[in-house]
């Protein structure tokens, strides 16, 4: 392959952050492309700073490059100034390592982490010089693939992506490479060209090839079914699940970028999957069951990673890191490691809401550079039962108390508005909770900040809320105003909110069927790239495109789906039985909470039984402290203790001992 560097170099003097385009990271691989290896361009369709840390992409990058018959490079969305320069000078999309043209690769594979990047996907295919529509591609073009969470509703991108990959990629990427090698790396490939290749790919478990399926619509325009048209192509594509995370200690060589990126630190994945069962959370639903990484391997990966990268911060990642069996031993093991010389801080990105967790956080966060963040999500106990985020108010207050008493002065709370059955009382409950948190903080510091960050809820596919009609822009705006007005008199409380218009646009794409592709294409053709970025987001582009296709926000976003309706993603499966999801939806409407199945009997959601796998957890005992354990009395969640922690601290904050002393601290003064 030819390097485009001589053409790229002169452009870099004129663009912002030129180092986005030079590669050179520690861990970057200079691969050789040859006839014996399938060439992959792994693409994150957002800026370099956002995309580089993506762990899924880095894992596949390493696994592919370890194979003798594969060679992988990476690419990220060029920022608007660079894209303009590239188009003006005829420079196509390129890889950051070898600056090779994207169209010269066998595969261009996108990571889909969010819906609003879809227009960037189209833009990057086009910038590669590849036809945007899959149907227009020929044998000489790369295969365009996509994976990641958004692949669980592939239909909105079905016209543009040749094949989607569902679930964990570690195993299936090799199987896909085998098929590609059969077609691309032999002197006489099988007959049938591109369509034969795609048909072969459609037979790989976990792979969905849209062109191998027929889509039928009824007289009323509603989708009636998506069915395979070729033999051996499955009616329902099941996601892939690796059973043993310990068998995949990746990334072994995490990329260390030359420039600052988001999550600029060592990341080690503690476990995959979450069974807390929060009904709004797509990640928790589609990544089941829970599979923990062995503690010894976590220690090794942390020690080796810090040594190799020179980072002074490690994040122990998962969907709820405090739930990891033996989390305490793991984190104290890291900070007590003499090779860290007391200069390494550990962060747990997803804190559970309880004092115990804060105690752990206080111990391990050497550098308190930020505030602590908790996510109660709902403003009232009733609301939190509907969404199955079973946090009692006293747990939140104990957590906040522990945070303020241990030196933090800023606490951030995440909430959702526009949830099913939400009343104004629920919405205003957000301010009531946050106000109470400010009052707690005032007992420790003169100046405290509590920020309530409010997002508009977008119902996600493969969750119990997939049938729910999203709140309108007007309704979300009204709720934002309610919150803003109620919070105004409260000193120390700040309300931040997500733009309801962006929430609507996300809703357009999230649950669309294949016809939504025309809308996405029109938004892109009218210049709508980087829609995740507020400075470029434009709702008018979306509503105009919807209108041009004869669609409405009312039907695409705000409408409740019915039980008997064929959903556009019914033919792809995250393992969850449809009747489990429907029952969970009914339970939500009945305000009925469902405890975590790790420590209670199975609800038969399908994720374990369907794939013959089980939770892999080192400890069968639920974590200590906090309402999110089990055996709790869920009937009292809304009761606020009259008084908690009556004694204000004198001087320095008491140092928490290992384990549950923070809980004791917060419980002592309780009336």
């Amino acid at each position, binding site marked *: 392959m030819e390097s485009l560097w001589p053409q790229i170099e002169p452009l870099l003097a004129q663009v912002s952050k030129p180092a986005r385009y030079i590669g050179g990271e520690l861990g970057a691989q200079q691969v050789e492309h040859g006839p014996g290896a399938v060439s992959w361009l792994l693409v994150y369709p957002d800026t370099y700073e956002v995309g580089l840390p993506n762990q899924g992409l880095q894992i596949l990058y390493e696994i592919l490059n370890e194979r003798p018959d594969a060679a992988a490079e990476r690419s990220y969305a060029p920022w608007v100034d660079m894209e303009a320069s590239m188009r003006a000078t005829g420079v196509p999309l390129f890889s950051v390592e070898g600056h090779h043209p994207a169209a010269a690769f066998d595969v261009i594979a996108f990571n889909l982490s969010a819906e609003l990047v879809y227009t960037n996907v189209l833009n990057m295919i086009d910038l590669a010089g590849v036809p945007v529509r899959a149907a227009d591609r020929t044998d000489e073009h790369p295969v365009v693939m996509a994976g990641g969470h958004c692949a669980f509703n592939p239909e909105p991108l079905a016209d543009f992506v040749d094949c989607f990959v569902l679930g964990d990629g570690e195993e299936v990427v090799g199987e896909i490479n085998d098929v590609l090698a059969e077609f691309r790396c032999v002197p006489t490939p099988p007959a049938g060209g591109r369509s034969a290749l795609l048909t072969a790919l459609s037979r790989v478990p976990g792979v969905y090839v849209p062109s191998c399926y027929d889509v039928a619509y009824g007289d009323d325009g509603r989708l009636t079914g998506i069915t395979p048209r070729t033999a051996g192509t499955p009616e329902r594509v099941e996601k892939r699940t690796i059973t043993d995370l310990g068998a995949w200690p990746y990334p072994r060589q995490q990329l260390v970028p030359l420039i600052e990126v988001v999550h600029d630190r060592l990341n080690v994945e503690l476990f995959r999957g979450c069974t807390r069962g929060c009904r709004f959370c797509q990640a928790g639903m589609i990544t089941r069951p829970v599979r923990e990484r062995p503690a010894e391997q976590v220690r090794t990966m942390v020690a080796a990673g810090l040594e190799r990268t020179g980072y002074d911060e490690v994040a122990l990642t998962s969907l709820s890191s405090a739930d990891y069996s033996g989390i305490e031993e793991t984190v104290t093991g890291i900070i007590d490691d003499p090779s860290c010389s007391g*200069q390494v801080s550990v962060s747990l990105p997803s804190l559970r809401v309880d004092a115990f967790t804060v105690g752990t956080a206080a111990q391990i966060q050497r550098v308190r550079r930020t505030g602590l963040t908790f996510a109660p999500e709902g403003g009232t106990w009733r609301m939190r039962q509907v969404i199955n985020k079973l946090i009692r108010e006293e747990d939140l207050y104990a957590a906040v108390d522990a945070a303020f008493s241990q030196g933090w002065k800023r606490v951030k709370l995440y909430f959702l508005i526009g949830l099913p059955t939400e009343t104004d009382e629920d919405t205003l409950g957000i301010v009531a909770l946050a106000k109470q948190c400010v009052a707690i903080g005032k007992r420790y510091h003169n100046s405290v900040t509590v920020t309530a960050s409010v997002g508009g809820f977008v119902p996600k596919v493969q969750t119990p809320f997939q049938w729910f009609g999203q709140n309108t822009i007007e309704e979300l705006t009204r709720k934002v105003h309610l919150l803003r007005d109620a919070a105004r008199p409260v000193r120390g409380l700040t309300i931040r909110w997500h733009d309801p218009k962006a929430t609507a646009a996300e809703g357009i794409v999230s649950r669309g069927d294949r016809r939504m592709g025309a809308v996405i294409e029109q938004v892109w053709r009218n210049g709508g790239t980087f829609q995740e970025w507020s400075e470029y987001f434009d709702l008018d582009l979306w509503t105009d495109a919807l209108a041009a296709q004869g669609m409405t926000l009312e039907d695409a976003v705000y409408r409740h789906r019915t039980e008997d309706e064929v959903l556009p993603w019914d033919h792809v499966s995250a393992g969850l039985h449809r009747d489990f999801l429907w029952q969970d939806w009914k339970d939500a409407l009945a305000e009925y909470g469902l405890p975590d199945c790790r420590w209670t009997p199975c609800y038969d959601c399908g994720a374990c039984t369907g794939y013959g796998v089980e939770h892999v957890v080192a400890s069968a005992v639920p974590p200590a402290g906090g309402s999110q354990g089990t055996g709790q009395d869920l009937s009292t969640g809304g009761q606020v203790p009259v008084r908690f922690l009556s004694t204000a601290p004198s001087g320095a904050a008491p140092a928490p001992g290992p384990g549950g002393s923070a809980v004791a601290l917060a419980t002592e003064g309780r009336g």
Partner: protein
Amino acid sequence: MRIRFRFSKLGKIRFTSQRDVARMWERALRRANLPMAYTEGFNPRPQLSFGLALPTGAESLAEYVDVSLDPVRAAEQGIVPAALPAVLDELLPEGLHVEEAVPVERSKDSLQQMVSSCSWTMRLVGVDRVGLGVMVAALLAADTVPITRERKGREEIDDLRPSVLALAVADAVTDAAVDPSGRTVGLVAELSTRPRGVRPVELLRGLIAVSDGLADRPMDGLAATGRPGSIPVLDRACRTEQWIERDGLRQEPLLGRVVPAGADRATHALERAS
């Protein structure tokens, strides 16, 4: 214990910023397991002090960083400064090359405050030797060269002239600034850091500004034709030295090599570059 390193920044890595380079050093020093001294406070950082910030996109043969080590642990570990360049060279990204390291005394002023001028070589396109020579002469002859530049979000007019200590078109026979391809024209300069540092692009704006005032020379607008009088565009810039001036003598910051602050300042820079 404080150790001063001299390093170069060449090639693709020139597109990273000064802050990026600082982070690369922090990571490399941690990987080298050096007993760094940390700042006090809630958010302790390694004590690193760089010389004058290098603009993003510029190369350099003369970058400096002072690294403070914990004296007790450094003695325990038997740190030998002269051995460190080879160790760190392995750990820094490609394009950063550590040349030398020497222990230095702690001083009141930071490296950044002490540096008084920098030598540069530049390669320009869109202009030929004759045209550039006219511009250089015009700038050197001018009493003031006002240019507009942004400071803290506000546009201000500064006089560039006092900061230009030396300026010359590169000599095609001997200068490293001469591009063998002949595509570009070389320029060598010594630019003072006081009252404010001057970036190569700002020098170029000054050259263009004084040429605009040359009423007898026809200007052919923005087209980069290479004909005399056209607008030069910066292709590459490389800082070849940073200087500390004391008592009329210029010292190279690491070894204190002394060079008289004479008339022939700019061409001296090329001894390093060649």
